[in-house]
């Protein structure tokens, strides 16, 4: 990527819930590489929205807390309405590196895939706790068995969707199970998917916050329940 002009129709969607302490920094870091950043403030109780606004993002605020999946869908819809050609989903807690957006984009351009998923296991996971690594690998095996999509990392919030993919994918799992729902839909809609190596930085903040895997065990339960609810 490098220059902003190259990715004029690239939108970065960041769902955020009570990320006031870090969101400003995250938005600024992303905006250094990509102009269009939309924060979906999922009814935070802190100043997440104001911080993001100040850092230059477009801010959408849910009037009630709906969950990360719903926030992603809101942001994607907004980006599409603004004519986005590519949509990148990015975590608010600072565990993703903005440079990796370029890696996703390059991978898309090279492969022509509809969806590019970031994989920490192709790339690097810094300071990943052992239990978390184990749970994530279990999730991968589970997704492989149940959806037939072969991935190395099933629960990475860093992904790139082409407009074609973003228009078709509908996230209905409001809470955390959306990650596997997205993969299910990629499979069901016949979209092509590739993985790109990205780095996850497990900072003290992101671990404490545990945005994605607060209780690592929960995600396995949610995966299971989501399957039952189909």
């Amino acid at each position: 990527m490098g220059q902003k002009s190259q990715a004029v129709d690239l939108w970065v969607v960041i769902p955020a819930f009570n990320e006031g302490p870090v969101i400003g920094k995250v938005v600024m870091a992303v905006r250094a590489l990509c102009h269009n950043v939309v924060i979906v403030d999922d009814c935070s109780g802190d100043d997440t929205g104001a911080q993001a606004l100040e850092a230059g993002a477009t801010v959408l605020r849910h009037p009630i807390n709906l969950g990360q999946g719903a926030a992603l869908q809101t942001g994607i819809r907004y980006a599409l309405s603004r004519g986005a050609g590519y949509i990148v989903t990015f975590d608010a807690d600072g565990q993703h590196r903005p440079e990796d957006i370029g890696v996703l984009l390059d991978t898309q351009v090279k492969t022509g895939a509809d969806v590019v998923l970031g994989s920490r296991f192709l790339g690097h996971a810094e300071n990943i706790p052992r239990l978390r690594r184990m749970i994530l690998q279990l999730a991968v095996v589970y997704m492989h068995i149940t959806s037939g999509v072969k991935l190395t990392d099933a629960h990475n919030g860093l992904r790139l969707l082409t407009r074609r993919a973003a228009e078709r994918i509908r996230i209905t799992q409001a809470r955390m199970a959306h990650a596997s729902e997205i993969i299910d839909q990629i499979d069901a809609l016949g979209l092509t998917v590739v993985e790109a190596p990205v780095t996850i930085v497990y900072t003290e903040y992101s671990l404490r916050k545990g945005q994605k895997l607060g209780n690592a065990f929960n995600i396995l339960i949610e995966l299971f329940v989501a399957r039952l609810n189909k």
Partner: protein
Amino acid sequence: MIIQVLLIGGLLLCLLYAFMQNQKSRLLSKAISIIALTGIYLVLFPEHTNGLARFVGVGRGADLVLYCWLVISLIVSMHLQLQILQLQGLITELAREMALQGARRSLDEGGTGTHLGT
């Protein structure tokens, strides 16, 4: 007997409710009416439940009524569950629409910092 008066009173209220619901949902109204009328009949002639119970293979009439009640409760709670899910979906859509209508952009982006219609 006092219990009969109480039960019939309650069932008559059900009938009244069914009557008032008639415009909203004919089917639901009819279902409630039939259940309430059957209930009133069985309260008035409890001995008839015993015959019916033996016919379908249940020991006592009271047990038969209990089992039927159980099934009806299950159907009602599943129906409610579905409605709750539907409502959740609608609320999500509504909240999303509000969020999209109220998009805000910062001042240095040529936005007003406040409202930004899409």
